[in-house]
């Protein structure tokens, strides 16, 4: 099975994060790491590859500035077989529609260059943007079925063709949904326990092939992506003010009343 996993480098949430003058996230001067939610996607892709009866392949795909290649490298260290990095200055500031446009074009090129892709695995959202819409948009652009928010993925290859089944757990129901490959799947953080890259994996990653493609390589017009093409614009962005100490209500027999008054005052009730 040929699996593509889409991965994103996000600013380290434990470091201090900042915005560029144009209100986009500063992705250059901060340390980045593979989005934690994408680690589940990489892990699931590796498990599906390794559980299959035939040899398979996992290709990690990312787009973003130079440093974004680290997301691919980390995926390779975990065990992915090869990587693609779409690197182009015009990409900076791309929103979800533009991101899905570039990824879809990248997947088409991958399919054309090296054979059909059976499964695309994404995290359920990025930990920086947290939009959670790219998997759906990607499926739409590729004209593929989408099986999103999977808590479990099973692949049945018994009849010569792949059928992919996922379990989605919501508050009200558990759904089992399936589709014939190729499909786009997004996975939640409940699906597995991502592995630590083993040292052998880290050593081997250096030797795995990574291709760097520009927008023109994947056939996307730079005018269609980037900040200027974004459907929405961030007008202002400010860091959240530090939390204030809060109000302590000392119960002198009237604690309940005063709590209720507070909630009413703040329009919670």
């Amino acid at each position, binding site marked *: 099975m040929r699996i593509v996993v889409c991965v994103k480098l996000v600013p380290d949430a434990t470091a*201090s994060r900042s915005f560029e003058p144009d209100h986009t996230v500063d992705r250059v001067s901060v340390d980045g790491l593979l989005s934690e939610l994408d680690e589940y996607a990489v892990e699931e892709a590796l498990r599906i590859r390794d559980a299959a009866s035939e040899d398979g392949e996992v290709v990690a795909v990312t787009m973003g500035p130079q440093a974004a290649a680290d997301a691919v*490298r*980390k995926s390779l*260290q975990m065990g992915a077989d090869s990587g693609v990095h779409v690197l182009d200055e015009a990409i900076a500031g791309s929103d979800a529609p533009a991101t899905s446009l570039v990824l879809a074009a990248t997947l088409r090129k991958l399919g054309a260059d090296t054979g059909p892709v059976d499964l695309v695995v994404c995290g359920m959202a990025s930990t920086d943007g947290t939009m959670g819409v790219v998997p759906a948009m990607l499926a739409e652009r590729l004209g593929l079925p989408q099986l999103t928010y999977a808590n479990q993925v099973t692949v049945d290859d018994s009849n010569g063709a792949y059928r992919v089944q996922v379990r989605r757990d919501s508050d009200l129901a558990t759904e089992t949904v399936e589709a014939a490959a190729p499909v786009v799947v997004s996975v939640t953080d409940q699906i597995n326990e991502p592995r*630590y*890259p*083993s*040292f*052998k*994996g*880290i*050593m081997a*990653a*250096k030797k795995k092939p990574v291709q760097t493609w520009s927008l023109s390589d994947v056939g996307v017009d730079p005018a269609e992506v980037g900040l200027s093409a974004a459907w929405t614009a961030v007008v202002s962005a400010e860091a959240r003010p530090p939390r204030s100490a809060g109000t302590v209500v000392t119960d002198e027999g009237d604690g309940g009343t005063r709590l209720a008054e507070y909630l009413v005052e703040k329009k919670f009730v």
Partner: protein
Amino acid sequence: MTTAPLDLFGVDGLLDDEERAIRDTVRRFGDHRLRPSVSEWFESGTVPARDLAKELGALGVLGMHLSGYGCAGTSVVAYGMACHELEAVDSGLRSLVSVQGSLAMFAIHRFGSQQHKQQWLPAMAAGEAIGCFGLTESDAGSDPGAMRMTARRDGSGDGADWVLDGSKLWSTNGTVADVAVVWARTDDGIRGFVVPTGTAGFTANEIGHKLSLRASVSAELVLDGVRLPADAALPGAHGLSGPLTCLNEARLGIVFGALGAGRDCLDTALAYAAEREVFGKPLSGYQLTQAKLADMTVALGSAMLLAVQLGRLKEQGALAPAQVSLGKLNSTRVALDIARECRTILGASGITSEYPVLRHANNLESVLTYEGTAEVHQLMIGQALTGLSAFR
């Protein structure tokens, strides 16, 4: 805006991508898997060594700087950084790894027969088999040449059995080990033996009542007429240079490792001083505190630069034993000083198990002593400088 102590020294820039990735992986493993439990292990004096060995094996830590036989084959500095991160959690956990990888596995890798290697190394790299190293005896610590344990031949010709008698003290991992590399006196001088711990006559007794390195197993090994086949002896090791070569290997891990404990203390003290208000403002804003923090940072960073330098020398095959002594002496002393100084910054909180500082300080007392005491390393350096041996 604050800078981490080692970032001031640009230590990151001395590592390659692979070394950084390995360090980050171990740090993460430490934060998620080890840190939440370590204080409990220390307090109860028990550590799930078998489970941890398997997890560390899966990661690739065990024997990581050795090549072949399921070992990862990383650089020396990568091994050092892994030790650094493990010891930032607890010296006992780094000890488990040092003894497994640099003492037991290294002895077999360097001095063992093909059969020893094939039988033990892959399982030890995976953490499915645990090794220990028996050199020290109750009356032979700094002077291992004074050991009493004997190995005599029983039978005729080259195929004669070996029979081992005596006891070893302070063998880390001893009671959980599947295999012990044991050094004994023979008619031809000191030899090493690969002893499966299930062999008749072998017993391991845990050493209790420790106030240091409590998250590590220490044991007495008793060998009472342990009969081994002729091929149990390590063919490549003759004389004291055998075990001493192993110790030098492990010491390099300590050079980096001890500084991990020091770093963790300093990080803890920095965070504590920033939060703790005394006389109306944060402790970190006082000159006396800053002088302490600055001095500790200078000591830690300088020691780290020496560690990386020694690691690179080793990678080039140009590291002399006296140079390892420089690092072992310096790192353990620096780390212990830092731990004690940080303890003062934490005040009374510093003596609790809620913070790692006094645990590290206690552990570092062992680290200062094992693998050659501070005094032994002073004598090694002194000998290199003067040409005179002052050991006797």
